[in-house]
């Protein structure tokens, strides 16, 4: 019942496009992990519609690259990282205002081309010699997670490539250069028309937490907090869940 009321309020507000009473105006820069690209872009549009006179700008990239940009003084109001480690890099330099909170988790799935031509069903199937496997490099979160799940399954993967980020890994699969890849559930979801995702028990051993925080260098802290609340609010949760994230 409450949900409906809020949705109605959102609709109402966006319909008259008048500023909601007591909300901040202006512009914020959100630095967010590449895997949040689609969801956040949509959320940003909805947020702007709900809060007239505001503008949300995004900088999507790998979390570690974003952490470095923030630590080097990039103008960011909010940081949403795909891994706690990268958030910690920023926290250690004192760039986080308040405390970072985990808002979603992501897990790895085995991704295969639509129709699963190589008949892959378990993690043991992807280490077979006739299966070309792409993984992320250990230095990036999806690669670290892959290492963990193979460790838990006591399997030694023989990937043909260790890609620099999850989208590069997915691209190799989409172009048909590899037969299988371990990528995030959300990445499989985003390409559901081309890829099939396969769950496996060991995936629970590497659950990726996504922390979000307002940064101490925020030019518009009020609006930044409003954005974080919006992401963690009902509409945000709904879109994130739809994209394949597990909402905390």
């Amino acid at each position, binding site marked *: 019942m409450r949900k409906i009321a809020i949705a109605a309020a959102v609709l109402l507000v966006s319909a008259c496009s008048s500023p909601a009473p007591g909300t901040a105006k202006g512009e914020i820069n959100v630095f967010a992990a590449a895997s949040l690209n689609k969801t956040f872009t949509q959320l940003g549009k909805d947020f702007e519609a709900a809060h007239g006179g505001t503008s949300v700008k995004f900088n999507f990239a790998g979390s*570690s690259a974003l952490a*470095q940009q923030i630590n080097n003084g990039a103008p960011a109001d909010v940081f949403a990282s795909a891994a706690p480690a990268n958030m910690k890099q920023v926290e250690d330099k004192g760039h986080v205002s308040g405390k970072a909170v985990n808002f979603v988790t992501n897990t790895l799935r085995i991704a295969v081309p639509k129709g699963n031509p190589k008949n892959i069903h378990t993690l043991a199937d992807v280490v077979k010699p006739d299966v070309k496997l792409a993984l992320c490099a250990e*230095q*990036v979160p999806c690669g670290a997670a892959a290492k963990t799940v193979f460790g838990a399954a006591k399997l030694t993967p023989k990937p*043909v490539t260790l890609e*620099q980020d999850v989208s590069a890994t997915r691209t190799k699969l989409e*172009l048909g*250069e590899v037969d299988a890849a371990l990528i995030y559930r959300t990445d499989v979801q985003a390409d559901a028309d081309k890829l099939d995702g396969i769950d496996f028990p060991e995936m629970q051993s590497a659950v990726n937490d996504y922390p979000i925080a307002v940064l101490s260098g925020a030019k518009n802290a009020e609006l930044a907090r409003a954005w974080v609340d919006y992401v963690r609010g009902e509409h945000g949760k709904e879109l994130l869940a739809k994209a394949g994230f597990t909402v905390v």
Partner: protein
Amino acid sequence: MSEQNRVPTLLLLPALLGLAFLALPLVGLLLRTPWDRLGEQLAAPAVREALWLSLITATVATVLCLLLGVPLALLLSRTRLPGIRLIRAVITVPLVLPPVVGGVALLLAFGRNGVLGRYLDAWFGITLPFTSAGVVLAETFVAMPFLVIAVEGALRGIDRRYEEAAATLGAGRWTVFRRVTLPMIAPGVLAGAVLCWARALGEFGATITFAGNFPGTTRTMPLTVYLALETDPQAATVLSLLMLVVSVLVLAGLRHRWVGVQ
């Protein structure tokens, strides 16, 4: 210094600014290098492996560029084909194409499902992505235009009557090319090859996209640097410097041996 040899004062300022602009990042790299870690990085097997792979693939790519690019430059400069402008545009495409896109394009051509790659796989069982050969291919694709442009310029610059003189002396086209044209354009070919090699050595985008990233087979120095940047920016600085030193050494050696004659 004679009056004629002096640069106009008006141009001196931008010249020095340009120099500073190019040199400062290098200075930054040098200043922030943790020198004490240089030895440790050099000793790391993964680094040596990547460096070795980089040197080998860049050199093979350069040889490939020479074998294909010099004849191509000759074709461009010596024939009046109707579509020559189009051909020239095609050749310069890798110069303007973001290398990552170049890598995707290479996948579409030579990948397992590529236009040509599919037959390479079906008929010969050859798949180029994720192999060192794939690295060479990516580097060749990106570097060849540098060679072709340099050699074409050299070919246009020579006095063609020397070739005519050789022909009247009984030399066939191949002999003329081998014994007259090639020696005359040698400085241009060398300059092109050096550019080509340097470009191949630094190649990142096309390589990571087309050949992937695996230690020992496709992880070249630039890929190693990029990965190091994810976790250990200091190490990345050291590796970059190592690349810089190696390429400067190689180029200086070349210059001394061949270009120094001039």
